[in-house]
């Protein structure tokens, strides 16, 4: 008990002494182990931190690099786009310039064509109006055909005081008068064979009325000519307008030629001794009372003492009963 206790105490003190000896070693070993472990921990931690930092930096570098890249891509794209636009704009400008040039040419053509068409239409209208006017003038000339001048008498439009006749005169000469059916052309040659022997009717001429010549006094040929002569109504007379005066003149000269006695024959021999002038022309220049104040001679000395002539008388009752003598009963109304 005490001995064991002391032995135990001694064992313990031995152990303590041994432990004391080893304490330092073990402590140092423990410290070494711990420091090594701590070191490993820290290293592991630091390597973790490193890894994290690396990955963060990787990500960050990637981001910035990509942003830069994007920017570069954008600028490159922009530059290519502008180049493209410029090229296209050049092309567009060239093509636009060509288009506008073509357009101006086309416009010029169109303007010229339209001008031509307008000119043609205008000329056409002018021509039509001119033709109408010509026609009207010709119709007028046809109606006034009788005013054509003849050798005897120059017409209205052919004044002798002018150098040239008027245009209406020329028109009158050109134009055919109205209602003239064309005379048969055979009138020029005189040898018209009479149709007496020809029994077939000639289409251009009327058939003769009688087989033998008409009337006993003219030759057959003449009668035929007269018979077949076409109607030529015109106011253009063959004899001149003054034929009547000239005939009178001719008669006068004929009478003068045949007249032997030149003295005119008077029927009465007594002559008045003097010529009694008219009262109105041979009086002095005052107004003559005769003719205005009185119309008869007045012999006042004869009328002296006489009573004036009565102009009003008492009525006579001759006609009082005129129309009233008999009653009107029984008259026819």
């Amino acid at each position, binding site marked *: 008990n005490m001995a064991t206790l002391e032995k135990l105490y001694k064992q313990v003190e031995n152990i303590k002494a041994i432990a004391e000896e080893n304490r330092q070693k073990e402590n140092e070993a423990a410290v070494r182990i711990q420091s090594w472990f701590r070191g490993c921990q820290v290293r592991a931690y630091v390597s973790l931190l490193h890894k994290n930092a690396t990955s963060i930096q990787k990500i960050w570098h990637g981001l910035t690099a990509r942003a830069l890249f994007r920017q570069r891509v954008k600028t490159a794209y922009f530059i290519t786009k502008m180049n493209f636009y410029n090229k296209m704009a050049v092309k567009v400008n060239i093509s*636009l310039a060509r288009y506008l040039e073509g357009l101006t040419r086309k416009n010029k*053509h*169109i303007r010229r064509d*339209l001008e031509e068409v307008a000119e043609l239409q205008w000329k056409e209208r002018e021509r039509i109006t001119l033709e109408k006017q010509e026609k009207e003038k010709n119709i007028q000339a046809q109606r006034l055909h009788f005013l054509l001048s003849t050798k005897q008498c120059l017409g209205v439009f052919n004044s002798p005081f002018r150098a040239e006749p008027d245009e209406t005169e020329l028109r009158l000469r050109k134009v055919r008068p109205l209602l003239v059916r064309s005379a048969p052309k055979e009138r020029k040659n005189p040898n018209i064979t009479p149709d007496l022997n020809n029994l077939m009717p000639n289409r251009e001429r009327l058939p003769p009325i009688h087989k033998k010549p008409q009337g006993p006094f003219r030759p057959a040929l003449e009668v035929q000519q007269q018979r077949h002569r076409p109607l030529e109504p015109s106011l253009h007379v063959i004899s001149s307008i003054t034929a009547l005066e000239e005939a009178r003149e001719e008669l006068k000269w004929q009478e003068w030629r045949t007249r032997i006695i030149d003295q005119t024959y008077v029927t009465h021999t007594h002559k008045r001794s003097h010529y009694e002038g008219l009262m109105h022309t041979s009086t002095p220049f005052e107004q003559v009372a005769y003719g205005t104040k009185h119309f008869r001679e007045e012999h006042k000395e004869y009328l002296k003492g006489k009573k004036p002539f009565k102009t009003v008388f008492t009525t006579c009752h001759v006609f009082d009963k005129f129309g009233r003598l008999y009653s009107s009963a029984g008259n026819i109304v």
Partner: protein
Amino acid sequence: MSQRQILQVFEQYQKARTQFVQTVADLAARPQNTETLQNAGVMSLLRPLLLDAVPTIQQTAALALGRLANYNDDLAEAVVKGDILPQLVYSLAEQNRFYKKAAAFVLRAVAKHSPELAQAVVDCGALDALVISLEEFDPGVKEAAAWAISYIARHNAQLSQAVVDAGVVPLLVLCIQEPEIALKRVAASALSDIAKHSPELAQTVVDTGAIAHLAQMILNPDAKLKRQVFSALSQIAKHSVDVAEMVVEAEIFPAALVCLKDPDEYVRKNVTTLIREITKHTPELSQIIVNVGGVAAVIDYLGDSKGNVRLPGIMMLGYVATHSENLAMAVIVSKGVPQLAICLEEEQEDHIKAATAWAFGQIGRHTPEHAKAVAVANVFPKLLNLYLDTESSEDLQVKAKKALKSILQKCTYLPALEPLLYEAPSNILKHVICQFSKVLPHDSKARRLFVTSGGLKKVQEIKAEPGSAIQEYINAINNCYPEEIVRYYSPGYSETLLERIDTYQPM
């Protein structure tokens, strides 16, 4: 009395009636007699004569009624109130062609005055009778019926729809193909009156194949027919793009351009209206018209005509230039700008001047080249005068201002901008100064010219609030020049110099 004497009485009565109705018809032909006739109660006297046994009296009575109703809408109302229309409509189906013509004339005379009267005519069932008349053989009857239909359809869309529902349009298209010119004219005018109200009606007209027949008649020598044909085509084309394209596909160009040289003024006007309605819709249609030479033809038309008829031509150029800058350049290249400047100068009416100002604005607003082309024609002072003139209408002032602003925003041609410095009001001046501030920093010759012409001096005299846009532009301009020059031209410089004399101490 003997039979002969009795019959003589009736003969006398008939002669009296005939003479009465013929005299009334002759009197009704003159407008100054209508009032007297109306006061004498002619309506009530003519009405029983419409039912007369003798056909001549019936026809002459109808003719007299028609002439009376033609002049005066009171008389037309009296015709409606007197219940004459049903009788006429009944006779329209039964009687001979002279009576039909006279009855159709009365219907037309009544329907022309107002929509209510036209509605009354339709309510009497006149449309069916008129459709039957359109199928008649005689062209005079067809013409009278077509004329009545066109006067009915003229007033509003509802009446046009009623007319179309009666089945009139195919018959009208047949009438157009007839050889008589008068019938063609009236049928074309009827189609024009029907199609003008709404796109559906125009589509109905197009569906019957009217466009091809109308296009065939373009080169007809009769002027009045051409007027109606072009009016019909333009009323059809104005409603929608599809219909306008169909009209263009009918190959009317370049034949229609020949009609721009027609001696008749209204033919030319209607052709230009048609071109305007076509170019209004899309750039492609405008391109077609430009390619075929339409712009040059219209510009020549503007040179040949005067007055109100120029308006469709001016609007057409504006519409073409609106669509794209290439088309605007095409207008400029075809010598449109000098012609429009002449129009602006010569015309007196405000609405024509407003249209010309608008057209200039559309041409010049695209790029600096366009603006330069407009500026070179010396248009700016005129537009400015129109804007500032107190006698111009409001519409004209607004359009002139808009045109000026839109052209100025692109204009870099300084010689044309300089006169504006002196006269423009402040809202226009802002844009002018803005343009100067854009151009002057880059061009030294322009800077020199600006100084020598007195522009810099004027700019210094402008009073602007600090911080406003004008002040910024003025600063930008002043920065282009050395300080001494700016100070030299600023107002009151001589006074400051003189003040320096006061403070100067000689050595």
